[in-house]
Each structure stands twice: as structure tokens, then as C-alpha cells.
């Protein structure tokens, strides 16, 4: 199976799953993955790809699952050392990242 998030997302859609795609849209300082990096998320929580070194994926998936079964939408997230939740989901490397989540319906 390919590691490509988009290819996996399409396969999941074809099998009837709703999916979300998270994309790093901006980085400041020392961020683990460059802008454009993507993470595909299936409605049961399975994920392929990455938007960080593993630091924020858990929270990104949680956010994606909140909106994955609602009408197609986007959500913007920002993580960094200045974030209130830095201790839980901040970036160990001290960088900041901004992430956009797109949801896609299997029947859309």
C-alpha cells in the first residue's frame, strides 16, 4: 500500500468512509515537517502521513473526528510553544505550525 495520504484518502472514500485531510499551511521556526505536508484521517481514526514529528497528530486527529461526519467543512489549528496546550500537544522542537483540516464525504 502506498504511503501517499491523498491516494489512501481516495481509497477510503471509495470504500464508503468519510475522511479528513490535514495540511501544514504555515511553519515558524524549527518545525518538524515543512508546509504542504499532509495527514489523511479515516473516520475510525486510522491515519496515513504526518504533519509533525508525531507531536500533534493525536490532537489533529481528535479535531478531525469532531467534524468528519458533519457537512464538509474546514478547521484551522495552530500549535506552538506559546500555545496554552503546549505541555500536552506543543512542539518539542520549539517551532510553531498552522494546520488546515478539510473533511470529505464519501457520498459527496
Amino acid at each position, binding site marked *: 500500500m502506498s504511503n501517499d495520504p*491523498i491516494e489512501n484518502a*481516495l481509497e477510503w472514500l471509495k470504500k464508503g468512509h468519510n475522511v479528513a485531510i490535514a495540511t501544514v499551511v*504555515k511553519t515558524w521556526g524549527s518545525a518538524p515537517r515543512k*508546509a*504542504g505536508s499532509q495527514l489523511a484521517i479515516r473516520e475510525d481514526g486510522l491515519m496515513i502521513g504526518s504533519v509533525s514529528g508525531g507531536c500533534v497528530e493525536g490532537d489533529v486527529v481528535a479535531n478531525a473526528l469532531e467534524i468528519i461526519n458533519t457537512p464538509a467543512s*474546514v478547521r*484551522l489549528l495552530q500549535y506552538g510553544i506559546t500555545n496554552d496546550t503546549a505541555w500536552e500537544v506543543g512542539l518539542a522542537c520549539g517551532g510553531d505550525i*498552522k494546520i488546515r483540516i478539510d473533511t*470529505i464525504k*464519501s457520498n459527496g
Partner: protein
Amino acid sequence: MDKALLEKIIKNKNKKISFCLISQADINETVLVKNKEIDKHQFSEFIKKAINEDRLILEEINGKEWIFNPFNPPAKLIIVGAVHVAQSLSIIAENADFEVTIIDPREAFAAQERFPNNKVICAWPDDAFKEIDLDNRTAVVTLTHEPNLDDIALKNSLNSNCFYIGALGSKKTHKKRIDRFIEAGFNNKTLKRINGPIGLPINAQTPQEIAISIMAEIISSLRFQKESIEELRENWKNR
């Protein structure tokens, strides 16, 4: 985003063309722009920048944030010399999303079975290079140890825009090579484009380790600005 857009993205990736996804940061609408549509687009400047620099750009335009997410065909690696190092190099290069082509006129080396996942061209570099576009997303590595094979490939590469040229061989071999090329009319500045001895100096010993040092050097050329590469090399030398 919808299913049709994902299908379009994969279709265009497979066609190996450059394209760009454009969306307003907080709005659920994404369009794919490619080929001639790029010049006509109201944001063509940013689309071209994203594609040329191969990085996503988030830009505020008239008070609204726009995302320009470029997709480029994979970088290419041309390996001249289907030797043992080439077998390891082709595997790690492919894992780093390079599209690998192997060239060697010697049939025993250029056996497809030795490179099950790659395009193998059993021909002299001159002929093989006729069907390859050595563009600015292409790296060329010569590994044959045979000057009559390596030199042809290196001359073709020096006359192209490829972003990386590397030649296997000791310092002594490389010095002799440079002398031959100067005699053939190349100047020193041009010849600096050849990375020789090839690879970052990690004291690699086995073919597998040499492949890693070569791949690391290729990536440094792809990802660093030109000046930084010189600096990087100096730092490595002075360690």
C-alpha cells in the same frame, strides 16, 4: 475538497505535471490549477512562486489569507553504472520519492533483475541521455569507474541544468578527471558543479553506506540554497 478533486490530484500526479491547489484559508473550496490556466489566473504570481520553490505558500491578499499548495513531479535521479552501489542507491532514492533511471551499456550490470523497481536503460550514456530531460529537478550520479563511460555522462550533465552532479572515485581519480575536462575545454567554475569524491564525508565503507552518503549529498543540493551548500561542505571538511 471532494472525491472528484482527489481523483483529479492523483490523475495529474500520474501525468507528472506541475499543478497547484488554491483555497482561501478558512473556506471549504479548493481548485486545481495547471498548465495554461496558471498564466491566466489572477494569482499567477503566487502559483508560479509556489511551484518554482516547491513549497506551500500562505499569502494575505486584499485582507484574505490564501493557500497555494504546489505539486511537482518527483525529482529524478539518473545513475550511470549499474554497479553494487547503484542497487542500494536506487532503493533509498526511491524511498525519498525520487524517480530513478539506471544506465549502463554492459548487459551483465544492466540486468533488470538487479533493479526490479526501476527503469534500466542498457545503452551508452550518449544514446540513453537522448531520451532524458536533464532539468533542474534532476540529479546525475556516475558510478562506473570507467572514464570512457563516466565522462560522457558528466559532459552531458555539465551542459544541462541538472541540480546535482556526482562522480564516484578517489581524490586522485577526480583530479585526473578534472585535468581531462580542462583539456576538453571546460572551465574550473563549471567543473565545480561535479561533486567528487562523491557523497558527504561520513567515512562510508560498504556499498550501502556509500549510497547513503551520496543520497545525503543529493538532498543537501536539493534543499539548501547554493551558498549554504558551499558553507556546508566547508563545515564538513573542517570537522
